């Protein structure tokens, strides 16, 4: 792993921007956006659930794009970036799935509905990426691990938009459409609130990605320092891990 010490740069301002945007989003959600005529107060979940799902899916695609950079350059820093992007997207995806499930219970009376294409397709994407970490863990050699994981990330990342388009093209669906290609069906105040929430969640994703990258790079830097100062024997072997080493 090449010496990289700049990941922490800008983390403070990014965290501040995230806090302000999410704070503003919460104020808009609960004090500005009107109650939905059909769903009432339950619709407030959408300002959280939909951005979490969108950012999660984008995170998977970003993970795939970063994996392409890894395969093109052979530089393992791209593998680490891709790994953290997918890891974060999984966490956000789980958040999106749970909040969506809570909305489904409040709105439809069921925690889960199997005949709803959007829900099931999202679950398929999430389960697909849930195999990413076990796949990495099953490969002991770090070089092979990063290469195979990158191939998986690219294929699975390409599956995300295909899956999204397929669901959109499906004739029958009952999932509410918050945003459409025509600009959305939301009134102005709701659209503004939704967009601020989306930016807030996207910033949170970027902040946590940077936070984890900083932590991992600091750990690598400490190991490098130990190797340089005390020699190879002074560094304890990492052991089998799903994370890039």
């Amino acid at each position, binding site marked *: 792993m090449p010496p990289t010490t700049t990941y922490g740069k800008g983390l403070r301002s990014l965290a501040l921007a995230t806090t302000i945007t999410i704070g503003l989003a919460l104020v808009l959600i609960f004090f500005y956006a009107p109650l939905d005529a059909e769903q009432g107060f339950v619709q407030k979940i959408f300002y959280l659930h939909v951005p979490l799902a969108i950012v999660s899916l984008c995170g998977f695609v970003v993970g795939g794009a970063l994996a392409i950079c890894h395969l093109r350059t052979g530089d393992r820093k791209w593998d680490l970036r891709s790994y953290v992007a997918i890891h974060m997207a999984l966490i956000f995806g789980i958040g999106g799935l749970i909040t969506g499930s809570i909305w489904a219970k409040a709105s439809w009376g069921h925690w889960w509905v199997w005949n709803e294409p959007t829900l099931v397709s999202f679950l398929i994407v999430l389960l697909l990426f849930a195999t990413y970490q076990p796949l990495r863990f099953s490969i002991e050699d770090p070089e092979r691990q990063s290469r195979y994981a990158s191939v998986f990330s690219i294929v699975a990342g390409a599956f995300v938009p295909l899956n999204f388009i397929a669901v959109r093209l499906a004739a029958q669906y009952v999932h509410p459409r918050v945003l459409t290609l025509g600009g959305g069906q939301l009134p102005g105040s709701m659209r503004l609130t939704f967009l601020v929430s989306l930016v807030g969640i996207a910033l949170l994703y970027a902040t946590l990605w940077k936070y984890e990258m900083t932590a991992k790079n600091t750990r690598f830097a400490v190991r490098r320092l130990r190797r340089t100062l*005390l020699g190879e024997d002074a560094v304890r072997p990492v052991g089998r891990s799903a994370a890039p080493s």
Partner: protein
Amino acid sequence: MSTLLAAAPAIPLGESGKFVAGAYIVFVVLILVYVTIMAVRAQRIERELAELQRDVEAARAGTEAEAERAREPAL
């Protein structure tokens, strides 16, 4: 703040309010769990750094003692 609260619509804390609160609590808990895990990792890095500092100082003390012994005239 009081003006903002006065201008805000009444929040229905009935059946639907319970679900909305649940969804937002899940989000906060998820972030808290993540931050806690990262805090534990940060502590581990701190421990490793302290250990490295100790080892480097011990190695330096060893080298200095060796150099001192080399300077001493043989009897």
